C-alpha cells in the first residue's frame, strides 16, 4: 500500500475523531448529552486498558510465552467482577471529594498533603514514560510494516521521524480537547466519546482478523483447537510463579493506572454505570483475547522464521493478500495507541499542574492566590505538561532504541504504577493509615521497583554497571538487583513485584502504626473510610473566619471557576435563605467551596488557597472528640438537634433580613414622600415665580421668551416625573400590556447604545461588545427591554468614574435563558448600597443628583419582572456590574406567574 495513502487514511480517521469530540463537546455545553451519558459509553471508554500493547503486543506475547498473556486480562476481570468490594467505594469517594487524579486522591486522603501529591505525580510520570514510548513504537512499527514492500520505499521517512510526527500530532489533539476549559469537575465528554468510538474500531478490527484466521486460514473451530494443541513452541511452558504474580499485578494495575483512574473515577457521570461495566468490561476483554492465541499459532506456522511476532496482526493478513483487512487492523492498532496516549497525558498533565506546579507556585508567590488570573496559568501548565510528557515518551523511545518486546515494556510500567495500591487501598479501608506511612511505602516500593526492574530495563551497564548486577550494590551480595536478599533464580519480574510490593506494604503499615496522624489527616481518614456513611460526610473541618469578606472568596473562586462561581455562590446563598451572590461564611459553606475548588485544582492546592484567605484551618476539641469516639447514637441524636437548630437559625436569619428590609422600606417610604414633594415643588416653585413675573407685564421680549422657556422646561420635567411614577405603578400592579415579538438582541443593544449616547455626550466612553454572542432572537417586548438597556448604559456613562470609561456587555445563553452583563471599569457600588439601588429614589450621593429622579433602576427592575426575568448587581467584578437575565422565549402566562412568584 502506498505510504501516502496510509498517511491520508490516518488523517481522515483523526479528523473524524476530532469531529466526534467536537460535536459532543458542543452538545455537552448545551446540556444535551442524551445517550452519551449511557453506561455503554462508560464501558467502552474503560477499554483504554487495551492499548497497542494489547492490540499488537498480546499476539507477540502469546507467540513467545503461550497462555501467559491472559493474565493481563484476568486480573482486571476479577477486579471488575468484584466491583462491590473496591471499585464502588473508589468511585463514590472520587465523586464525593471531587478527586481529579490518583495523586489528588492519595494527597487528599492523607491530610491534603502536597508532598504526597508530588511523590505520586513523579512516580506516575516515570512509570508512564516507557508505556507512552511503547505506543509510539507500535505505531511506528505498524507504519513501517506497510511501507516495507512499496516501490517508493525511499519516500518513507525514518522510524524516528514517524515517531516524532505521531507524538506531535497527539500533543496537538490532546491539547485541543483536553485543556479547552477548566471545569469544576475534571471531565472531558468529547474525548471520552472519541475514545468509545476508537474502542469499537479496535474490537471490530481484532475480531475481523481473528475470524479470518480461524475460518479463513485454519478451517474452523475444531481444526483450530487441533492446531493449538499440537503447536510445539519453546518457552510455552506454564510458569506458575509468573501466572500468579501477573494476575495480581494486572489486578493492581487496573485500579492504579492513571488513565484507568481517569476514565473510571474522574470521568464517571453516574455511579450506577459501574454496575453495568462490572460485567460488560470483562466481556470486552474476553472478546479482545478470544482470537489472540489462534492468530499467534497460525502466524507462527505460516510466517517465515524471524518475523516480528508483535506485528503478526498486520503481517499475517498482508501476507495472505488481504489488504483491506490489514488496513482495518492498522486502524485498530492506531486507535489503541492514540486513545491510550491521549487519556494518559491528560491524566498526567492534571497531576502535574494540580500537584506539582500550582502548589510550588503558590509557595513561591503566596500573594498569587489573591491576584492574577489563575485559570490561564493552570491551562498553560497543563498544555506544557502534555507536550512534556509526550516528549519524555519520545526520548525514551529514542534512547531505548525501540528494540525491546512490547509486552516487557508494558509490564515494567504496570509494576511501577502498582506501587500506588497499598497507599490507595490502605487509605480507603483503614483509618489508621497515616501520611508518613503512605510516604514511606510509596518511596520504598518505587525505589525497589526502579532498582530491580526499571533501571535494569535499559540494559546491563547502561545505568547500573555490570559489577552491581553480579556482586550487588557496594559489593553487598544481598543487594543484587536480580536477587534481593539472596532470592536467586526467581523470574526477574516476579522478583521485583514481590519485593517492591511487600516492602511497600510493610513500610506503609509500620510507618502508619508508629506515627500519629495530624487532625486534618484524621478527618479526611474518616471521610474516606466511611464514604457510605452519610453522617460521617458532614464535614467537621472548620475555618476560623472573620478575617475575610465573602467578596474576596468570590473573586478567588471566579478566577478558577469563572462563570460557574457565581452560580455556585448564588445557590449557596439561597440555601442559607439569603438573596444575592454573597452567602454567609459558615463552616459548611467554606468546606463546600473548598471542595468545589478542589475539583479544578486539586485538594492540596484548594486547601492552600483558602488558607491564604482565612488563615489556618482550626479543629476544635469537639471535632477531635467526634473523630475519636464512635458513639453513633449520640451523634445521630445530636445531628437531629443540629438540623433543627440549623433550620431555626435559617428562619431567624430570614426573619431578621425581612425585618431589616421592612424597616428600611418604612424609612424609604417617608423619604419617598418627602422626596416626591420636594421633586414636585422645585419645578413648581420656579414655574410659579416665572409666571408671576410674566403676569406683571411690561417686560422686554427677550425676558418673556426666556421665562417661557424656563416654565416650559420645568413643566416637561414635571411631566417626566409623573410619567415615571405612572409607569412604575402600572408595572408594579402587573397590568402592563406587553408587546411580544421576535427581536434581535444585537439590534436592540445597538438602539440602546445609540439612545444612551445622548447622556453626557462629551465624555470618551468605549463600549466593548461581542457581536457573535449577540446573534440571538428573543421573544420579548423589545421596547421595554431596550428601555432597560438604555437605562443601564446611560447609568454607566453617568456614574462610571474611570477615564477613559469602558463598558463591557457580555451575552451568554444557557438552558433557555439569556444573561446580559453590563460591567464598567469604575469604582463600583459600595456593598451597603448594593441592596438599595433598585429601590425608588435611591441615589447614592448628593453630587450625583444631576440625573433623573432616582426612579430609573426601580423601573428597570419592574420591567424585568414583567418580562419574566431578573436584574441583579454582580459583586466582585472590579466595577459596577449588572446582570440582566431573561427567558429566550417569553410566553404571556409565564410573565404573570413570574409576577406572582415575585410578590
Amino acid at each position, binding site marked *: 500500500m502506498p505510504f501516502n495513502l496510509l498517511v491520508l487514511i490516518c488523517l481522515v480517521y483523526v479528523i473524524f475523531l476530532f469531529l466526534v469530540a467536537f460535536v459532543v463537546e458542543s452538545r455537552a455545553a448545551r446540556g444535551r448529552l442524551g445517550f452519551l451519558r449511557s453506561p455503554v459509553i462508560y464501558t467502552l471508554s474503560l477499554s483504554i486498558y487495551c492499548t497497542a500493547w494489547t492490540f499488537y503486543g498480546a499476539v507477540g506475547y502469546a507467540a513467545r510465552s503461550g497462555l501467559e498473556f491472559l493474565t493481563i486480562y484476568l486480573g482486571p476481570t476479577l477486579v471488575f467482577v468484584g466491583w462491590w468490594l473496591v471499585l464502588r467505594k473508589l468511585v463514590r469517594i472520587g465523586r464525593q471529594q471531587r478527586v481529579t487524579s490518583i495523586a489528588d486522591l492519595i494527597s487528599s486522603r492523607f491530610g491534603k498533603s502536597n508532598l504526597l501529591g508530588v511523590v505520586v505525580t513523579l512516580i506516575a510520570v516515570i512509570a508512564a514514560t516507557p508505556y507512552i514510548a511503547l505506543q509510539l513504537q507500535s505505531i511506528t512499527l505498524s507504519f513501517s510494516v506497510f511501507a516495507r514492500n512499496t516501490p517508493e520505499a525511499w519516500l518513507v521517512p525514518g522510524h524516528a521521524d514517524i515517531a516524532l510526527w505521531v507524538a506531535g500530532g497527539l500533543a496537538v489533539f490532546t491539547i485541543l480537547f483536553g485543556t479547552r476549559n477548566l471545569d469544576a469537575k475534571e471531565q472531558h465528554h468529547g474525548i471520552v466519546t472519541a475514545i468509545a468510538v476508537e474502542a469499537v474500531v479496535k474490537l471490530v478490527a481484532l475480531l475481523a482478523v481473528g475470524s479470518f484466521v480461524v475460518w479463513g486460514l485454519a478451517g474452523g473451530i475444531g481444526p483450530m483447537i487441533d492446531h493449538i494443541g499440537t503447536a510445539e513452541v519453546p518457552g510455552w511452558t506454564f510458569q506458575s510463579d509468573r501466572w500468579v504474580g501477573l494476575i495480581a499485578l494486572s489486578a493492581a494495575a487496573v485500579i492504579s493506572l492513571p488513565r484507568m483512574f481517569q476514565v473510571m473515577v474522574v470521568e464517571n457521570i453516574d455511579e450506577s454505570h459501574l454496575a453495568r461495566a462490572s460485567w460488560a468490561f470483562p466481556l470486552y476483554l474476553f472478546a479482545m483475547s478470544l482470537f489472540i492465541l489462534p492468530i499467534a499459532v497460525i502466524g507462527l506456522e505460516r510466517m517465515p522464521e524471524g518475523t516480528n511476532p508483535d506485528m503478526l496482526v498486520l503481517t499475517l493478513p498482508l501476507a495472505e493478500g488481504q489488504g483491506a483487512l490489514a488496513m482495518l487492523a492498522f486502524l485498530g492498532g492506531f486507535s489503541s495507541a492514540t486513545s491510550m496516549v491521549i487519556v494518559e497525558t491528560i491524566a498526567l498533565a492534571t497531576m502535574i499542574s494540580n500537584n506539582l506546579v500550582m502548589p510550588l507556585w503558590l509557595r513561591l508567590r503566596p500573594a498569587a492566590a489573591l491576584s492574577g488570573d489563575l485559570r490561564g496559568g493552570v491551562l498553560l501548565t497543563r498544555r506544557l505538561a502534555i507536550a512534556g510528557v509526550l516528549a519524555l515518551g519520545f526520548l525514551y523511545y529514542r534512547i531505548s532504541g525501540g528494540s525491546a518486546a512490547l509486552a516487557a515494556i508494558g509490564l515494567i510500567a504496570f509494576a511501577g504504577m502498582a506501587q500506588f495500591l497499598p497507599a490507595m487501598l490502605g487509605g480507603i479501608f483503614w483509618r489508621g493509615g497515616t501520611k508518613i506511612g503512605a510516604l514511606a511505602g510509596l518511596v520504598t516500593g518505587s525505589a525497589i521497583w526502579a532498582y530491580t526492574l526499571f533501571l535494569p530495563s535499559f540494559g546491563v551497564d547502561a545505568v547500573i554497571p555490570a559489577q552491581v548486577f553480579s556482586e550487588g550494590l557496594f559489593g553487598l551480595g544481598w543487594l543484587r538487583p536480580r536477587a534481593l536478599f539472596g532470592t536467586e533464580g526467581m523470574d526477574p519480574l516476579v522478583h521485583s513485584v514481590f519485593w517492591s510490593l511487600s516492602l511497600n506494604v510493610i513500610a506503609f503499615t509500620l510507618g502508619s502504626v508508629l506515627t500519629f496522624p495530624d487532625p486534618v489527616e484524621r478527618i479526611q481518614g474518616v471521610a474516606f473510610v466511611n464514604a457510605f456513611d452519610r453522617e460521617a460526610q458532614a464535614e467537621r473541618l472548620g475555618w476560623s473566619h472573620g478575617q475575610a469578606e465573602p467578596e474576596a472568596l468570590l473573586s478567588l473562586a471566579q478566577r478558577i471557576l469563572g462563570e460557574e462561581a457565581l452560580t455556585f455562590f448564588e445557590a449557596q446563598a439561597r440555601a442559607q435563605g439569603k438573596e444575592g451572590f454573597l452567602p454567609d461564611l459558615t463552616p459548611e459553606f467554606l468546606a463546600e467551596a473548598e471542595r468545589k475548588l478542589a475539583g479544578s485544582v486539586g485538594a492540596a492546592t484548594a486547601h492552600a488557597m483558602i488558607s491564604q484567605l482565612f488563615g489556618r484551618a482550626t479543629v476544635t476539641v469537639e471535632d477531635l472528640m467526634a473523630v475519636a469516639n464512635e458513639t*453513633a447514637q449520640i451523634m445521630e441524636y445530636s445531628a437531629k438537634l443540629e438540623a433543627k437548630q440549623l433550620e431555626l437559625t435559617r428562619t431567624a436569619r430570614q426573619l431578621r433580613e425581612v425585618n431589616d428590609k421592612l424597616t428600611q422600606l418604612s424609612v424609604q417610604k417617608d423619604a419617598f414622600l418627602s422626596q416626591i414633594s420636594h421633586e414636585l415643588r422645585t419645578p413648581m416653585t420656579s414655574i410659579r415665580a416665572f409666571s408671576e413675573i410674566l403676569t406683571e407685564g411690561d417686560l422686554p421680549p427677550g425676558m418673556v421668551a426666556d421665562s417661557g422657556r424656563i416654565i416650559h422646561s420645568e413643566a416637561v420635567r414635571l411631566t417626566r416625573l409623573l410619567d415615571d411614577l405612572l409607569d412604575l405603578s402600572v408595572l408594579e400592579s402587573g397590568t402592563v400590556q406587553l408587546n411580544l415579538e421576535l427581536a434581535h438582541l444585537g439590534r436592540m443593544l445597538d438602539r440602546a447604545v445609540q439612545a444612551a449616547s445622548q447622556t453626557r455626550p462629551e465624555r470618551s466612553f468605549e463600549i466593548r461588545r461581542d457581536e457573535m454572542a449577540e446573534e440571538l432572537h428573543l421573544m420579548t417586548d423589545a421596547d421595554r427591554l431596550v428601555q432597560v438597556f438604555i437605562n443601564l448604559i446611560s447609568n454607566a456613562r453617568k456614574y462610571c468614574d474611570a477615564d477613559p470609561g469602558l463598558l463591557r456587555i457580555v451575552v451568554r445563553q444557557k438552558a433557555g435563558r439569556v444573561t446580559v452583563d453590563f460591567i464598567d471599569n469604575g469604582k463600583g457600588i459600595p456593598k451597603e448600597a448594593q441592596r438599595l439601588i433598585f429601590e425608588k429614589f435611591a441615589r447614592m450621593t448628593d453630587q450625583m443628583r444631576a440625573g433623573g429622579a432616582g426612579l430609573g433602576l426601580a423601573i428597570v427592575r419592574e420591567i424585568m419582572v414583567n418580562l419574566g426575568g431578573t436584574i441583579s448587581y454582580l459583586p466582585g467584578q472590579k466595577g459596577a456590574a449588572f446582570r440582566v437575565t431573561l427567558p429566550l422565549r417569553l410566553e404571556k402566562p409565564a410573565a404573570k406567574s413570574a409576577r406572582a412568584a415575585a410578590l
Partner: protein
Amino acid sequence: MPQGPLFLARAVYRRRRLRDAARLLPVFGLLLLLLPAFGEQSGNLAHTAIYLFAVWALLILAACLLAPALSRSEAEGDPETDQGPQDMGDS
C-alpha cells in the same frame, strides 16, 4: 459494635446475602483461575485455554446476573453497613 435488630425483614435479609455473594464472586474466580498453576505443567495448551475461557465466561455471566439486583438494592437504600464484620450482626 452498634446493636442492630436481631431479625431482619425478608427483603433486607435477601439483599445482604446478595452482597455477600458479590463479595465472594472474585474470590471463587481467583481460585478457579489459579487452578492451572497447581496442575500438571505440560498439559495440552488448547485444553487449558478452553478451561480458562470457560471460567472467564462463567464469571461474566454471574456478574451480569448480580449487577442489576445489586444496583437496585443500593438505590433502595438499605442502611449501608458495608464493613464485613458489622454485617455479621444480622445473622
